Structures are given as structure tokens and as C-alpha cells.
């Protein structure tokens, strides 16, 4: 019923704007997957989302809602910029790992702010992470206006471009997918293992009944700190990837809402690595598809693109809910049949 209502509302808005739904959907498809470039572009959008979401999901399983990925990405990118500018042009075999490590260190440290405060004084982690996000934004603005300012003199705040060797090489595909996407793929595989691992289950247990996990010899401190650090490092790594793989220099929009969307993707993918990959691609297609909608219809203003994104998000979520319900029912039926037999 919700979908019906919302789709109706959406259709009304679109009709109001003078176009019709099939054209919009076709445009969305074309923008997101219609050409090899567009499809690659969607993947390239999805890459940092996957990374952030995987990190967030680790913390979510321990019972912590991580809204700090945005700030962690920023601090990760700042660390990477400082380190890379600091060492100057070196071989890419050195520059790439250095950047990645710096990003992870920055993100991890920033996330530990929330982790340590949660452990030490039980400061609500949602609150501390949200505040840390704002602090990171101001920190970035300050650095871009002062120490990290582009000496070339730009109209907007930005750092000098990274040296060539520090940039992540692109894959030989149309579109801007870089080599680090393969690293993310590797991380997905690791996450798949972790998702089913015993230690992940212990993290789940901690999320629900901390004393039971503690009795297995895994202290709350180690779980809280390690899961926050992992989620922060993932976000920081994503920050480096945006910096060295996409933007080429530090600027205020480096995190571009990815941290926030990463949380959405983690929830949409229900913490499962495969679910997260699918959800990330779906979420990325909301953005890339919007261009297609605009080109297809020509008349629809950007604001309707935003509305379309919201409606698609709701529709996808409802689809997820319905699929899960179906699966559960079918499983029960199968068991029933077995019981009868």
C-alpha cells in the first residue's frame, strides 16, 4: 500500500512536471546501466559505498550505529593528503600503500574518539560520531584555507593536486573505475568470510548480551574498540580512494555524503556483504540514473530527480521486505512439508 501511495504521489509529481513514468524509468536505466561508461560509472559510485557500508556493518553487529563515516572519510583523506604532500613524489609502489595506510589511520583514529568515549564514559556513540562529523568538516575547511591551500590560487578552497604517482591507476574500462575497486572486491571476499566467522558471531552476541561475549574471553573493550576502528579505517580508506582515485586533490566535498549513504547501504543490505554490494549498486544507480532521467525527459528539474531517488529508495526497500517475507514463508513451508513427510 505504501508503495502504491508513494508511487501515486510520484506519478502525480512527474505528471505535474509534464512527463510520464515509463520515459523516466527508461531514462533512469539508460543513465545507470545503459552504456558501458554509465554502468562503469555506477560501479565507480558504488565502490566507496561498499567499503563504507562494510565497515559500518561491523559496528552495527556489535550494536553500535555508526553515523561517523562522513567525518572519518574526511579525516582519512586529510591524513592521506598530508602524508603524500609531505613525502613528495615517490614511486607509486610506495605512494599508493602509503596513502591507503594514512587514510585508514586517519579514519580509524577519528572513529576511536567515539569508541573510547563510549567505553570510558558511555557517551552515546551516535551523538559523538555526529558531532565528530561536524568537527571534521570544520577542520577540513580550516586546513584548506590555510596549511593545505592550493598555492596555485583557486576560487574555491582546495589543496594542490596530488603528484602523478600518488594517483590510483585506472582500470582499462570506459569510465573512471580505478584499480582500488579490485581491492574493494578483495575486501568484500574477506568480509564474506568474516560475516560467517565465529568471531563475527561473538560480536553479534556482544551486541545483544555483552556478558555472554565477555565470558567467551572477548572483552567489551576489545570488541568496541576493534569494531569502531575497523569501521573507521574502512571509511578512511574510502576517503583515500576518493582523493587519489577520483578527485585527485582534497576539497570540501571529498566525502560527498558517501559516509551517510554508506550507513543506508549497510542497512539496506542487511549487513550481508553480498546484500551490501547489491544495495550499493542500487543506491549508486539513484545518482547516475538521475542524469539519464534529465536527458531523457529534458523537462524535469533536478528536484524531481531527488524525489525520484526517494521513491526508488522506498520501492527498493519495500521489495527487500517482501522478498524476505516470501523467503521466510517458503522456508517454513518447506519445513512443514518435511514434517508431514
Amino acid at each position, binding site marked *: *500500500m*505504501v*508503495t502504491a*501511495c*508513494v508511487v501515486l504521489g510520484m506519478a502525480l*509529481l512527474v505528471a505535474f*512536471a509534464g512527463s510520464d513514468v515509463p520515459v523516466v524509468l527508461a531514462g533512469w536505466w539508460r543513465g545507470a546501466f545503459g552504456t558501458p561508461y554509465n554502468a562503469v560509472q555506477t560501479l565507480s559510485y558504488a565502490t566507496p559505498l561498499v567499503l563504507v557500508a562494510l565497515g559500518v556493518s561491523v559496528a552495527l553487529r556489535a550494536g553500535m550505529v555508526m553515523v561517523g563515516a562522513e567525518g572519518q572519510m574526511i579525516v582519512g583523506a586529510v591524513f592521506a593528503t598530508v602524508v603524500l604532500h609531505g613525502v613528495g613524489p615517490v614511486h607509486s609502489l610506495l605512494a599508493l600503500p602509503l596513502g591507503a595506510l594514512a587514510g585508514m589511520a586517519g579514519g580509524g583514529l577519528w572513529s576511536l574518539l567515539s569508541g573510547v*568515549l563510549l567505553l*570510558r*564514559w*558511555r*557517551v*552515546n556513540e*551516535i*551523538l*559523538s560520531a*555526529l*558531532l*565528530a562529523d*561536524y*568537527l571534521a568538516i*570544520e*577542520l577540513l*575547511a*580550516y586546513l584548506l*584555507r*590555510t596549511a593545505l591551500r592550493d598555492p596555485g590560487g583557486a576560487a574555491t578552497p582546495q589543496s594542490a593536486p596530488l603528484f602523478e604517482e600518488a594517483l590510483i591507476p585506472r582500470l582499462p574500462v570506459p569510465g573512471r573505475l580505478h584499480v582500488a575497486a579490485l581491492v574493494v572486491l578483495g575486501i568484500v571476499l574477506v568480509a564474506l568470510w568474516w560475516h560467517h566467522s565465529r568471531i563475527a558471531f561473538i560480536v553479534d552476541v556482544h551486541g545483544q548480551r*555483552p*556478558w555472554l561475549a*565477555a565470558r567467551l574471553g572477548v572483552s*567489551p573493550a576489545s570488541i568496541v574498540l576493534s569494531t569502531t576502528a575497523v569501521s573507521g579505517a574502512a571509511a578512511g580508506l574510502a576517503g583515500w580512494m576518493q582523493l587519489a582515485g577520483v578527485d585527485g586533490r582534497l576539497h570540501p566535498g571529498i566525502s560527498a555524503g558517501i559516509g*551517510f549513504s554508506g*550507513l*543506508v547501504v549497510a*542497512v*539496506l543490505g542487511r549487513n550481508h556483504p553480498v546484500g551490501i554490494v547489491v544495495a550499493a549498486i542500487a543506491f549508486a544507480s539513484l545518482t547516475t540514473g538521475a542524469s539519464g532521467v534529465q536527458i531523457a525527459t529534458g523537462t524535469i*528539474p*533536478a*528536484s*524531481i*530527480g*531527488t*524525489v*525520484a*531517488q*526517494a*521513491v526508488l*529508495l*522506498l520501492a527498493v*526497500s*519495500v521489495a527487500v*521486505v517482501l522478498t524476505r*517475507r516470501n523467503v521466510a514463508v517458503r522456508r517454513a513451508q518447506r519445513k512443514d512439508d518435511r514434517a508431514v513427510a
Partner: protein
Amino acid sequence: MTVLSLDFWVLVLAGALASATPIVLAGLGETVLQRAGQFNLGIEGIMICGALAGVLGSAAAGPFAGAGFGVLAGVLLGFVFALGCLAGIDVVLVGVALTMLGVGVSTFVFQSWVPSGRTNLSVPTLPAMSVPGLSQLPGIGPLFSSIGVLTYAAGALAVLTWWVLRWTRFGLRIRAVGDSPDVAAVRGVPVSRYRAVAALIAGGFAGLAGAALSLSAIGSFSPGMSGGRGFIALAVVVVARRAPLGVLAGALLFAVPDSLGLLGQTRDTGLPVEALHALPYLVTFVVVCFESRHRMRLRQDTAI
């Protein structure tokens, strides 16, 4: 006038009162919703729609009708929130979708109403009143000389919300639903209905908060005018530990340093402007840390 002068602080506080108002309003609604066991990441989207509805309403029938329109727009989006949750979608997703929806719809309507080249609407704003007696006081008088009606309303609504949550069956039921839906169901509370009502209330409050933004002083709409206040309201509810009167305190805890960060730029503080902008977040952070620590000291034992 230095940073230490009374006049300066009167200015800071006057600014804080005004900027705390929408945060208090949105925070109160969110408090009710969170007491019912849910939370809405979509306040931002509702607020911006409320701001636009407020302007359109005020243009049509005066500022008070505008405030009503804001509430109405909020209730409508609250309805979408309730529907989404009833359909079984995770609240995080519904909230995010609602933010997108609110931003998209309000921008679209605004662009249709005021296309390029047309002059933006200016509508009558809500009146401000002085507090009799207090406004005559020397020194701090100006602080009370002109306070917007919605600022008074925010204070009154905070008390009302507190009263409803504590002294009515409705409030107790909302709290029971949030505490444990299963248990509430056993006690005969229709859980979904109460959650839906809480979502409508939260929406209405957020819509009113939006109207407060556009109708308290400005009388015009601009698409980015909610400026992240929806998220601040969420944070304030956490700081307030979901207590309505705590929301008053939490909003001021944020708004005073916020106002100070703005006005501090007029004095020679030697601080970079970003540090001043970061002030409200920093102060909130520090206060919350101390408060949490204090709370932990009170209960000396720690569960493992």
C-alpha cells in the same frame, strides 16, 4: 563592547533564543517519536517542507495560518513515515528517503512558484512580543524586548509534551510502546496505531519547526534554509535523554555557543572562523562527556 560585556551576552542570548526555537520544536516531536521506540532521520526533509508551506500559507492567509500550514505539511510527511514503517521498512531507510523527498518536493514547488526572474515571495512574519516587566530591566532588558511567538510556544509546548508524556494515559502508552512493543501489546495497547500517531505528531512538530524558520523573522523561503537543523534536533534529543524539558536545555546548550560563534567574529578573538563555527559542536561534545562521566560515577558499578 567587549566579549565580556553584558551587552554582548545579551545579543548572544537573544540570538540563541531565536535559533533554538526550531530545534526545540523539532526536538519535541522527535522526543515523542523516540519515546514510542522509533527515530526519524527525515526531520530535515520535513522541516524544509514546513518552511515552504509556512510561507505559502502566510501569503494566502496570514502568518498564523502559515504556521498551521507548516504543521499540516509536517503531518503529511509524518504520514509517509508511518506508512513506510508499517510496511516494514527499516526506519533508517524511511528517514533518509523522507529527507530526499522533502528536499525534492519543496525545491520543486518553490521553483514552480518562483521561476527564474520572478521575485521571491515575502510574506508577513509572526509577531514578536516583549516580556512585560523583564524587558524594562536595565542591562538585560533588551533580551526580553522582542521574543517571537513561536519561541514562547516552544517553551509552552515543551511543558505540554512533558505533561502529556507523564500525566496522560496516552503518554504512558507511547512510553510503553517504545519500551517494549510486545509487552505493550499484551497490556492491550495497539502498538502500530500509537506509533503512527507518534509519527504524525513528530511530523507536525518538525513542520512547525520549519515554519518557525521561515516565518519568525525572514518571511521568505530559500531552498537550503533548514541548514542541517534536523540533524541537530536529533542530536539534541540524545543529549536531552529524551526528556521534553531536557530538549529545552539541550537546544540552548547548542544554540548559545552557536550564536557565540557567529557574534564572536565581531570581536577580535584571534580564532580562525572555522573554530568559531565549530564552537557549538565542541561545547556540546564536552558537556555531554562530562555529563556521561558524572552519570557513570553516580552508579558506581559497571555491568560487564
